[in-house]
């Protein structure tokens, strides 16, 4: 079963604009991770935020985590056509597995 739910399911923006994706989850977590997937191929790890962190940056990426609301957001600034992909949040609890949401399909138009 899916733990997280990304919102929106699909997002279409112009190059240079910012893209914001949200993720909600149901149970307590140790950390939350964001992954990118191009054209149904392997996933690429983007960023990990631990449950005791509220915000994290990596290049053009900014992730926030609100454990009281069980939600996270991923912001991609100054988007590029190459950012076109599906983005997934994945939660990790006290066990061994990642639980993924259904993903957000981001399309960046040139």
């Amino acid at each position, binding site marked *: 079963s899916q733990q997280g739910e990304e919102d929106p399911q699909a997002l279409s923006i112009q190059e240079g604009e910012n893209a914001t994706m949200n993720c909600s989850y149901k149970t307590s977590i140790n950390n939350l991770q964001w992954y990118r997937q191009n054209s*149904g191929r*392997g996933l*690429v790890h983007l960023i*990990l935020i631990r449950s005791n962190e509220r915000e994290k940056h990596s290049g053009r990426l900014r992730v926030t985590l609100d454990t009281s609301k069980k939600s996270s957001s991923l912001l991609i600034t100054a988007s590029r056509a190459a950012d076109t992909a599906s983005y997934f949040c994945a939660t990790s609890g006290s*066990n*061994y*597995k*990642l639980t993924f949401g*259904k993903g957000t399909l981001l399309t960046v138009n040139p």
Partner: protein
Amino acid sequence: DAGVTQSPTHLIKTRGQQVTLRCSPISGHKSVSWYQQVLGQGPQFIFQYYEKEERGRGNFPDRFSARQFPNYSSELNVNALLLGDSALYLCASSLPRTATYEQYFGPGTRLTVT
């Protein structure tokens, strides 16, 4: 350094057949996990192996099995294939046993069951 590799890339099987998928982790990684991704959905956890022992299993029937070899490579076996087994099968490796750190995914094996 080579990333996670999987073989084959694509596979077409008939209902009732058996299939074996293979995964080689990043050098030095001792943990391998398998995920199934049905079209339009996020990946679903199937198995995790660490130091050649099964450490976790997702909600999949006994038709699914896996093993890890002394060199930490892994195989996923699916028996009595069903149409619903058609999916992208992803292998991921990581350093520690838990998912606390990021997992490195391979390109996947696309399985089509007809």
